[in-house]
């Protein structure tokens, strides 16, 4: 009998635990614990000759106190002392304490590592196991550094005991997960595969776990494991259950090992070898057959174990996605489970079926279960299961059943758990758009969403409906009519007011013919909601009103009265007040023609992937969303699915930018002359009209643009001559002519930068109407935000003024913004344009790393598109110190001693942008031997555009 000898514990500990249990209140317990802590502290401090038993007892008490939820800040040293005890029980408690209360004190870690080293070398299997357990439990980097190279040899040594092999395999696995870069691959990897043949099934199980993880990282190195795993699986599956005696669990042969082997096989495509392939198919068929056999035991453990293997086999079948018969059988099996009385099985069946739904062989079969799944949605008592049902409905949806599924989801939404409402809203919105043949259905669906779960309808969803209505002429009249009707409800959600305001503002004219929805009725309806809404919605409504003035001259007076009222013109909110003032003024001054131009209908939005999908993916995490963007179920029936699936993964440009163009570059100064250049040129300056988040000065530009009479300045050649000099430095003179000198001082931190621009008047005459603006091309606008502070419009002769630019890097970029300067000097207007030296490398943060790390990452970035290389002639004399200074100035850390050739330069850094961080490695190899001095520059980053840009920038510097 292996019973724990209950009597051999520690008396003091038992008494202490009893005391705690007898405490009547929390206070009494804390008091008792504090008393004990004081006692232990004094023992540890005072009596130097504390024997092993006492130390063990006190450490154990500390552990108990910790497990009760109290902080323990001492005793680590005593625990470490116990590690070096000869007594097993003392060593054991020491290791337990260390594993539970890891301490990062480096002195302690050294001592701990020392003790572990001794135990690993002790050849005592029990001690070795304790040490391996400790490494695995702590799994810290320090431990990985100390032992990662030693453990493989323990694992594959011929004389290692089975139990130690098991521990060593898992220990290695753990280190591989926490610090993969420190675990050396090598000759042992081949031998580790052969552990799959080991006699001891425990060793095989541990080895399979290890190999699975390693195979995921470098599949080619472990390819040989496929045949061994199939052979092993086949032996288990066909064995009579008695063959494996100990590893048979409730009449199922080695279920855990089977599961692990099936997982390992999921790292690979179906075996190419025909014999192997048919053997595997046989195994899978056998597993499926066994599911139909009567159970050998009524115990739940039996069916659990059997089904664990079955589900894993089904996962493998789905993963291979190549055997139609197996897929259909798998699907039918899951169908049976959908109706099983065990909730666990229903849950897992729904989950597996979700992945099955995306296979072309089984999609149709999955669809046959739609009623069962809908029923699950209605009747399951467990939210986890209902959530799975929602996922499956989403995955099985196609054009044939979209209406039914969307209707069911909508009706479920009324009672759905709050925790999953937002997700359902997103899913409904996506399905409705994706499978809409008739867009009136789409509009109805989204309005229903807002009605049922308005609070959970995110901005993306209502932006999207507006985008679609604007782009589809056929639905505009219907949309206007529908929102008009929906707004009749006495209490409607604010999101409905937003959609209603926007749509009526654009298309209210389409229903104005009906006297029941005449312009005045429409306006009064919208305005009746005004006072109940938040500021952004009111701002939107004000914009809708000005649009009404254009659409319906007959209500102009009414609307002007509203705008003129104190509650608008003197609104305490700056944005609202400003809109009221500007719109009122606009409506008074502008002629009908100007109004019509300015307030023209919104132009169609560029077609693009729905941002809702991106949001859903973000919410669910990439792995958990069944991909419905399959070619097979593409809305358009086209096969551009690669494009479709790729799009949302990239950061799809936010719809906000479209609909509410807040990032529209705003000329920096308040000078009207400058303004016109920026906005008049664009076709629809009044896309800004609904700009909810605009700053007041931005709002002002709106009117200025319209009424400004100044012609746009003639185009000026952009000065770039000093641009490249700023790649590796931040300060200096960027432009100079007879009149003006422009100097820069810049500083960057992460994705933000600040440039101080100094404008020096070199003449003795005053510059008048001095103004500046920063312009970017359309692409750059989305990648880089530049905000310029205003600058003094007068610069005295010989004086200097300063301007501050704030810069934010949103994503990687290639172009550079242009600084436009305009002033009057002696009666003539001067225009100057200078390319601002804002380059991608400015957003570098240097990264120090070891040689090993460097090469590890270098290897990871080995894909051809990640590397950019350039060989070029030296333009300057080769000087090591200058080169070093340039590389440092470029922004990366210069890594010494990494490159085996000391003449080479190696650097590493991370580009910070708002969206991502891109790690970059670079290597510069000077060739001093050649006749013509040459360099070879290699850049590796995770993003091709970044590699290219950085290479272009840096290669110009030497």
């Amino acid at each position, binding site marked *: 009998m292996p019973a724990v000898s209950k009597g051999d514990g520690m008396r003091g500990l038992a008494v202490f635990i009893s005391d705690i249990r007898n405490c009547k209140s929390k206070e009494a317990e804390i008091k008792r614990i504090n008393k004990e802590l004081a006692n232990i502290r004094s023992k540890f401090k005072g009596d130097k000759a504390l024997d092993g*038993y006492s130390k063990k007892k006190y450490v154990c008490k500390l*552990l108990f106190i910790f497990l009760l939820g109290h902080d323990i800040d001492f005793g680590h040293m005593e625990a470490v002392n116990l590690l070096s005890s000869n007594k097993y029980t003392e060593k054991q408690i020491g290791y337990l304490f260390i594993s539970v209360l890891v301490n990062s004190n480096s002195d302690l870690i050294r001592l701990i590592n020392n003790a572990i080293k001794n135990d690993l070398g002790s050849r005592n299997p029990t001690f070795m196991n304790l040490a391996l357990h400790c490494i695995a439990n702590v799994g810290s980097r320090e431990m990985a550094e100390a032992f990662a190279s030693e453990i493989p040899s323990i694992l594959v040594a011929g004389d290692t005991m089975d139990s130690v092999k098991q521990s060593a395999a898992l220990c290695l696995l753990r280190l591989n997960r926490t610090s993969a870069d420190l675990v050396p691959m090598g000759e042992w990897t081949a031998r580790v595969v052969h552990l799959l043949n080991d006699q001891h099934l425990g060793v095989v199980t541990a080895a399979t776990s290890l190999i699975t993880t390693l195979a995921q990282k470098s599949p080619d190195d472990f390819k040989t494991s496929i045949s061994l795993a199939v052979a092993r699986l086949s032996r288990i599956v066909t064995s009579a259950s008695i063959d494996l005696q100990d590893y048979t669990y409730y009449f199922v042969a080695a279920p855990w090992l089977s599961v692990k082997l099936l997982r390992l096989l999921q790292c690979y495509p179906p075996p190419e070898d025909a014999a192997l392939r048919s053997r595997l198919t046989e195994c899978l068929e056998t597993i499926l057959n066994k599911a139909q056999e009567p159970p050998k035991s009524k115990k739940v453990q039996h069916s659990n174990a059997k089904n664990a293997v079955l589900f894993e086999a089904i996962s493998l079948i789905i993963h291979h996605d190549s055997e139609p018969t197996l897929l259909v059988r798998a699907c039918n099996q899951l169908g049976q489970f959908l109706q099983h009385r065990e909730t666990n099985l229903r849950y897992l069946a729904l989950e597996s079926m979700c992945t099955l739904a995306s296979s072309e062989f089984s999609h149709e079969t999955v669809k046959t279960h739609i009623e069962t799944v809908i029923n699950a949605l209605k009747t399951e008592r467990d939210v986890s299961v209902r959530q799975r049902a929602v996922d499956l409905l989403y995955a099985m949806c196609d054009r044939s059943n979209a209406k039914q599924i969307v209707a069911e989801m909508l009706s479920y939404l009324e009672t759905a758990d709050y925790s999953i409402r937002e997700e359902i809203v997103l899913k409904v919105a996506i399905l409705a758009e994706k499978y809409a043949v008739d867009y009136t259905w789409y509009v109805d669906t989204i309005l229903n969403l807002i009605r049922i779960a308005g609070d959970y309808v995110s901005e993306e969803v209502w932006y999207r409906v507006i985008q679609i209505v604007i782009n589809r002429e056929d639905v505009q009249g219907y949309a206007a009519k529908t929102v008009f009707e929906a707004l009749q409800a006495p209490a409607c959600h604010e999101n409905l007011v937003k959609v209603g305001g926007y749509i009526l503002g654009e298309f209210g004219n389409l229903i104005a013919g009906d006297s029941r929805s005449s312009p005045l009725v429409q306006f009064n309806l919208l305005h009746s909601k005004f006072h109940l809404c938040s500021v952004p919605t009111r701002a939107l409504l004000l914009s809708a009103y000005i649009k009404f003035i254009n659409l319906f001259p007959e209500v102009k007076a009414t609307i002007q009265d509203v705008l003129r009222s104190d509650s608008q013109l003197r609104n305490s909110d700056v944005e609202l007040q400003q809109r009221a003032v500007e719109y009122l003024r606009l409506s008074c001054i502008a002629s009908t023609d100007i109004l019509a131009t300015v307030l023209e209908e919104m132009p169609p939005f560029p077609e693009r992937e729905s941002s809702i999908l991106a949001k859903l993916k973000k919410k669910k995490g990439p792995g958990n969303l069944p991909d419905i963007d399959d070619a097979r179920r593409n809305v358009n029936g086209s096969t551009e699915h690669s494009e479709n699936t790729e799009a949302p993964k990239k950061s799809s440009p936010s719809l906000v930018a479209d609909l509410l163009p807040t990032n529209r570059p705003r000329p920096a100064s308040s000078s009207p002359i400058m303004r016109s250049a920026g906005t008049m040129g664009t076709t629809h300056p009044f896309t800004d009209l609904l700009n909810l988040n605009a700053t007041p000065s931005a709002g002002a530009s709106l009117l200025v643009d319209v009424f400004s009479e100044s012609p746009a300045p003639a185009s000026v050649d952009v000065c770039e001559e000093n641009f490249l000099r700023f790649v590796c430095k931040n300060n200096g003179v960027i432009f100079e002519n007879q009149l003006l000198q422009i100097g820069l001082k810049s500083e960057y931190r992460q994705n933000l930068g600040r440039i101080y621009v100094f404008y020096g008047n070199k003449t003795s005459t005053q510059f008048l109407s001095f103004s500046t603006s920063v312009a970017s091309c359309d692409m750059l606008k989305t990648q880089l935000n530049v905000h310029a502070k205003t600058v003094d419009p007068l610069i005295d002769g010989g004086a200097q003024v300063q301007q501050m630019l704030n810069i934010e890097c949103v994503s990687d970029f290639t172009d550079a913004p242009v600084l436009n300067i305009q002033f009057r000097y002696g009666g003539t207007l001067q225009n100057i344009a200078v390319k601002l030296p804002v380059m991608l490398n400015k957003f570098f943060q240097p990264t120090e790393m070891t040689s090993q790390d460097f090469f590890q990452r270098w290897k990871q970035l080995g894909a051809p598109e990640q590397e950019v290389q350039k060989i070029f002639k030296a333009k300057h004399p080769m000087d090591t110190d200058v080169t070093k200074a340039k590389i440092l100035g470029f922004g990366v850390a210069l890594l010494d001693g990494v490159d085996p050739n000391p003449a080479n330069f190696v650097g590493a850094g991370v580009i910070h942008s708002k969206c991502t961080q891109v790690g970059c490695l670079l290597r510069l190899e000077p060739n001093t031997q050649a006749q013509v001095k040459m360099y070879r520059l290699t850049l590796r980053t995770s993003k091709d555009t970044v590699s290219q840009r950085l290479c272009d920038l840096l290669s110009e510097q030497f």
Partner: protein
Amino acid sequence: VQNTVQHVLLQAEDMQQQIIRETFHLVSKRDDNVCNFLEGGSLIGGSDYKLIYRHYATLYFVFCVDSSESELGILDLIQVFVETLDKCFENVCELDLIFHMDKVHYILQEVVMGGMVLETNMNEITTQVDVQNRMEKSEGGLSAAPARAVSAVKNMNLPEIPRNINIGDINIKVPSLSPF
């Protein structure tokens, strides 16, 4: 209030306590006939993680696992762990787990190591535990005497305390183990 035996992720200590409280809160209010899997919240590391639990009388055994493990496999593993505890403690009860939390850890370490499944064969596990016990006995010497006293203390206390007593918010926790 029941005890929750669980594996927690490597987290700061106060975080561990919070995870335990949260988990207990989640698990304890679930009916018996709902499923034994819970989607991970943000506390335990996001949607890739699941809580898989089994309920035995007054005890909940909760494992937190990532998607690399079979759900049903883990349910079985919990069963193996509990059956092993039962064998080692001869009809295990809650008090055994409280008074011998060190032993419970040792047994768990034979099943799960560094958050990964080490051994699933109950006989292998009990053999290892047996080896430990023998070593402990052979080292007995001095500690044997107080040990006998302990069992006296414990036996004395036991009748006074009903077996499944409400003992307040005591949680038993296993070493900081990462998800498997």
